[in-house]
Each structure stands twice: as structure tokens, then as C-alpha cells.
């Protein structure tokens, strides 16, 4: 018995769904739009939290260069 290979259809992109005639969209298309946008939101929230938690560059620069005592002693040697 021959088996036909599974041909995985290329998933429809979000842009294609937005460009399509909305009257032709299926409930599964709408669900996909919502799911994709939620995924994008979750990704953005993670990235934004990382960005917010990083110390600001200006604060780091204003602390100036901090010398270690060994640095000072070695420069005197």
C-alpha cells in the first residue's frame, strides 16, 4: 500500500490574513490572528522587562572609573 507523503502546507502569515478579504476568513483564521498577537505580546513583555531591569547607562557612567587597590599598588611598583 503506497502512502502519500504528508505535505505540510506553509502556514499562512499574519500579513496574508490581514490582506485577505475579511469576509472569507474562517474562525480558525481569526483564532490564529489572536494567538499570534498574544505570542508577540508575551515576547514583547519579556523583552521589555529585561530592558527595564537593566541599569541605565548614565547611572553607570556617573559612578566614574572605580580603581581597585591592587591597581593602584601595581602602578606604583
Amino acid at each position, binding site marked *: 500500500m503506497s502512502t502519500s507523503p504528508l505535505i505540510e502546507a506553509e502556514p499562512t502569515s499574519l500579513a496574508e490574513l*490581514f490582506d485577505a478579504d*475579511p469576509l472569507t*476568513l474562517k474562525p480558525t483564521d*481569526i483564532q490564529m*490572528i*489572536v494567538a499570534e*498577537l498574544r505570542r*508577540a*505580546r508575551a515576547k*514583547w513583555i519579556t523583552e521589555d522587562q529585561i530592558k527595564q531591569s537593566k541599569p541605565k547607562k548614565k547611572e553607570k557612567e556617573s559612578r566614574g572609573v572605580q580603581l581597585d587597590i591592587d591597581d593602584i599598588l601595581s602602578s606604583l611598583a
Partner: protein
Amino acid sequence: MSNKNPFSRENPLLQTAWDSTSLGLLKTCPRKYQYKMLENWSKKGENVHLAFGIHYHSGLEAYDHSRANGATHEEAVEFAVNKTLIAAKDFIGTSDPETLPDKGDIKSKATLIRAIVWYLEHFRNDPAETVILDNGKPAVELSFKMELPIENSFGENIILCGHIDRLVKLGGLIYVLDRKTTGSTISSKYYEQYNPNNQISLYAFASQVVLPEPAVGVIIDACQLAVNFARFHRGIITQTAKQLDDWLNDFSMYMQLAETYAENNHFPMNDTACSNYGGCEFRKVCAAECSIRPLLLNNDFEKRVWNPLIER
């Protein structure tokens, strides 16, 4: 109140039905009011921003209606997205290069749908619940008209009109909820512009009169729109009864001013407001020699009527 003419029968330059948009224009600059409300000029391309705002509000309204009709959150989100995609079928959006250089499409169909979905995710477990009116309908997109005990010299009563996005109950208290979009970062400073504020005071005042249960304040759900994200924040503005009395007293005096301008067929420029909010759209017109102003208006503007009496 079936008459849809917001102007006096006796003087077509004298407005009798006012909303926060037209009142705000008069307060900012009578000349700007004249151009926008009396001559119906709007900057070309402004339509896109108006359309985006309308679709954003309509999408969220669709969600509110759907939930009030018993739909689950998921069903209501999908309904809102579907309805918005259909309603915004021909919405092209703009990258608006003049105001957002190299920033891409902030107002497009994609960012519109994203703003709606992300808003509904952000407020998924919203403690503010939509009020259900006595007629069983959810209190969303409520248009109101109220006749005030303020008359012009022709004996015509002044009418105050408006459009409330949503009425909610939060912590047992009623609030007007208004949704706004902005390109700016939302901070506590953002909310300072709403107190005092013409529109917020009008809503707060009207809610004392037209609603079965007066609202104690106005909740503002602000959406910061950017190319790659939409960020949300909620603020609450409250005003005392005395503040609202003050507002009404001021409103009455502005009506007298409007009548003076209309009687004289002259609406003076407020040349201290020309630089507000990035510059008035009519600045070049007002800066030009009087004789060429009509040419500038015809070239750079288009006609769009704003009627406070038309329900959205």
C-alpha cells in the same frame, strides 16, 4: 429632540448644541473654531487618525457587547477582531512621515488589531465591570444630549452633547470609562493633562444629570501606540461638585463669547495658542496675507462636517 442642526435658527454662526470637541476648539482659538466648525475645514490626511480611533473604539465596543450578551472572553475577543477586520476592510493607515519620520506604520490595520487584542489581554481580568442599563443593554458607546438652563439671546436653550465609551462599576462605584490612544510614553505626567480638562469635566458634569446613577469620576484607559508594541495604563480622574459647578459657570460665559463672535461675524485669533501640541494645523493659513488664505485652505484642507448632534 429630532432636530439635527447644531446651530441657531436665527443666526447660522451661533452654535446651540455643543460637545467637547467644538467647545474645546472655541476655548483654544475662536479662529480655529471658525475654520473647523463653521467652515468645516480639516487637514488632509487627518481622516486616517480619526478612522483609526473610530475602529479602535468600535472594536472594543464589540467586545463589551459580546460579553454582555453572555459570550466568554475568548468568544468576545474573536468577535471583536472579526468585526473590526470587516469594518476596517478599506483602512490603509499611514506612516505619516511628516510627524513620524522613519518610524514606520504606527496606524495600520495590523497595529489596530494588535492594539485591540493586546488591550483585551492587558485587561483580561478587568475589575471594572460594564454597567447594564435598565433596558438590559450594556452601557457602552452611549450618546447623550441634555438641554441646559442656559439660553442665548434668541431664547434658544443650549444643548450639551457627548459620547461615553463605557460606564463601569469599580469597587461598587460608577465611573465613566474613556479610551485614548497616544504616541507618547504614558506616565503620571500624562494624566495631568486630564485635570482640569474640557472633555473630562463635560463627561463628569453630564454623568451627574443623564445617568440613573451619577459617576464619581472618569477612568482613562490610555494606549501608547508604537511600531512594535502597544502599552496600556489606567488612570482615574475625580472632580468635586464645586469643580463641576465652576465648569458650568465657565461654560455659560463661553456661550456668551460665542454669541458675541457670531453677532459680529468675527472670530478672533488666539495667537498664543499657535504653537500648542506641535503647532496648530491652521498656523500657515493665519500667518498668510488675508487674501491668500482661501487658496491655502483649498489646497491643504478638505471639507468634513463635525456635528455634535450626530450619534456615533
